[in-house]
């Protein structure tokens, strides 16, 4: 019974102060939230824009302007070896990144947090082994799954998406287990059992809402990871295949031109970094806003 004693005035006073300063904090949101939000917005905007407008049609080859440097009239960021406009390629690449990361993150989030909730709600005796199994899954390099899939099914977006899901499910599960267990240990859950609520109800009505801030943060960070993994798989050649454009594949193709046209590897890389950074910063900002203290200290 560690909770028998009141934690005394310090904690309560701090709680009061915290509650009171909520408004204050909302008014001066962390800079990371703005920056991250802006980068994410730009990324999504560019990806969606590519459906209606790109400087040149997809796979349009400007054969006269091959390997044009950045700033060449008509080609803001230059062209590649085949004369494709880099801006166009990057916009189309954003589209593929967005597609793969949305699908994989949503599926991995739903699957992973469901597994996490199930483990948190499982019988006390089963919880330890199950948690450790998730840990083991977490330790495994997800790229192996991707490569096995690619060897079997061939490279492609499906392989990449499935691999990212396999990679991220243990992450989502692991992050969910702890906080879900914390919520389950609170008195209002016991009260709910007391008036006859069953576990599924408690999970959906009590646990899920209480860990939702955490899941939002997690989703954002997983998005960033998905962007990076998609790029890495495409770079290795086991991800998306031509003619679909992808930042990672673009880097792979221009790797040999490192000396001749370094700008070709610079811009797609920058696009990946900025997008991943956007989601990471957004996650960090959300973490600050959604009050980690609350999630950590048992929602006091």
């Amino acid at each position, binding site marked *: 019974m560690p*909770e028998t*004693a009141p934690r005394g005035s310090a904690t309560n006073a701090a709680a009061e102060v915290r509650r009171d300063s909520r408004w204050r904090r909302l008014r001066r949101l962390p800079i990371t939230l703005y920056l991250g939000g802006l980068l994410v917005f730009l990324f999504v905007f560019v990806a969606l824009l590519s459906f209606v407008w790109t400087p040149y049609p997809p796979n349009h080859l400007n054969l006269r302007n091959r390997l044009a440097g950045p700033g060449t009239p008509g080609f803001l960021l230059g062209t590649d070896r085949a004369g494709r406009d880099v801006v166009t390629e990057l916009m189309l690449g954003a589209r593929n990144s967005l597609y793969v990361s949305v699908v994989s993150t949503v599926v991995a989030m739903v699957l992973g947090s469901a597994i996490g909730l199930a483990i948190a709600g499982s019988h*006390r005796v089963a919880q330890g082994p199950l948690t450790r199994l998730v840990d083991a899954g977490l330790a495994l390099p997800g790229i192996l799954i991707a490569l096995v899939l690619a060897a079997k099914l061939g490279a492609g977006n499906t392989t990449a998406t499935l691999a990212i899901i396999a990679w991220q499910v243990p992450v989502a599960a692991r992050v969910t287990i702890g906080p879900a267990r914390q919520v389950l240990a*609170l008195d*209002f859950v016991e009260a*709910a059992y007391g*008036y*006859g609520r069953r576990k599924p109800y408690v999970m959906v*009505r009590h646990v899920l809402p209480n860990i939702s801030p955490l899941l939002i943060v997690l989703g954002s960070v997983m998005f960033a990871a998905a962007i990076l993994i998609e790029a890495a798989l495409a770079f290795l050649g086991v991800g998306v295949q031509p003619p679909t454009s992808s930042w990672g594949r673009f880097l792979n193709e221009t790797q040999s031109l490192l000396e001749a046209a370094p700008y070709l590897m610079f811009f797609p890389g920058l696009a990946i970094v900025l997008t991943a950074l956007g989601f990471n910063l957004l996650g960090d900002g959300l973490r600050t806003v959604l009050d980690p203290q609350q999630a950590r200290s048992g929602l006091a």
Partner: protein
Amino acid sequence: MALVEVENMWFHYPRARLGAGVEGWTLQDISVQVQAQSTLGIVGESGSGKSTLIRVMCGLLRHQRGVVRFDGRDIAGLSGRDAVDRRQRNQMVFQNPRRSLDPRMTIRRSLSEPVRALLDRSPDDTEMTGWLERVGLGPDVLPRFPHQLSGGQLQRIGIARSLSVNPTILYADEPVSALDVSVQAQVLNLLMDLREQLGLTLVMVSHDLGVVSRMCAEIVVMRHGAVIESGPTEVVLGAPATDYTRALLHAARAASLEREGAEG
């Protein structure tokens, strides 16, 4: 016939393996009787199993050995309508009001939960206002969230919630230990008044002998998961039979204010 009868009850929390001895058992061979409309206090130090005991009695935890009877019926054998009925008649008030209300639910929703779950209907605001009035609160708290209210208000809401399904017996687990002294007195008085008005049976766990001796006519002293002494409060505390109870009493008296019984 007593309202609640606990006979040779043993309890342990779930674990992979259990040793042959008594060390794995949180509660050992407990026998307690609670008469209808009586007041029973359970005292003991932390880890003595007092909170676990009322959870078993209330049906929140299931014991492994022995019998717990409510209204003459073994609670382990109840099912369907009978089980719901038993739940409805056994209600619990928790120690920490901030932890006993879901921070993501409005008071309206939290307050209506027992009726929704046990009686399968949604109470309207008029009905809920009535419950709140009983504990000295207005309907203005209904749309609020727990973090917008004080500890005392939340504990009143916790009590109102427990009473919403018209229980026969109310279990209170350290109901005031998380509250300020000035609010403690309000909540204790409220519990006493409600108990008398509604003819409730009250079983209360507390580490504070002063609180228990005001609230409860009978008392059970627990130590290391077993009952070591029980009986009318004035007998158990007035003339303790065990050294442990004497020590408990001595320590409590040392660091308490002396008060005249009649002055209140």
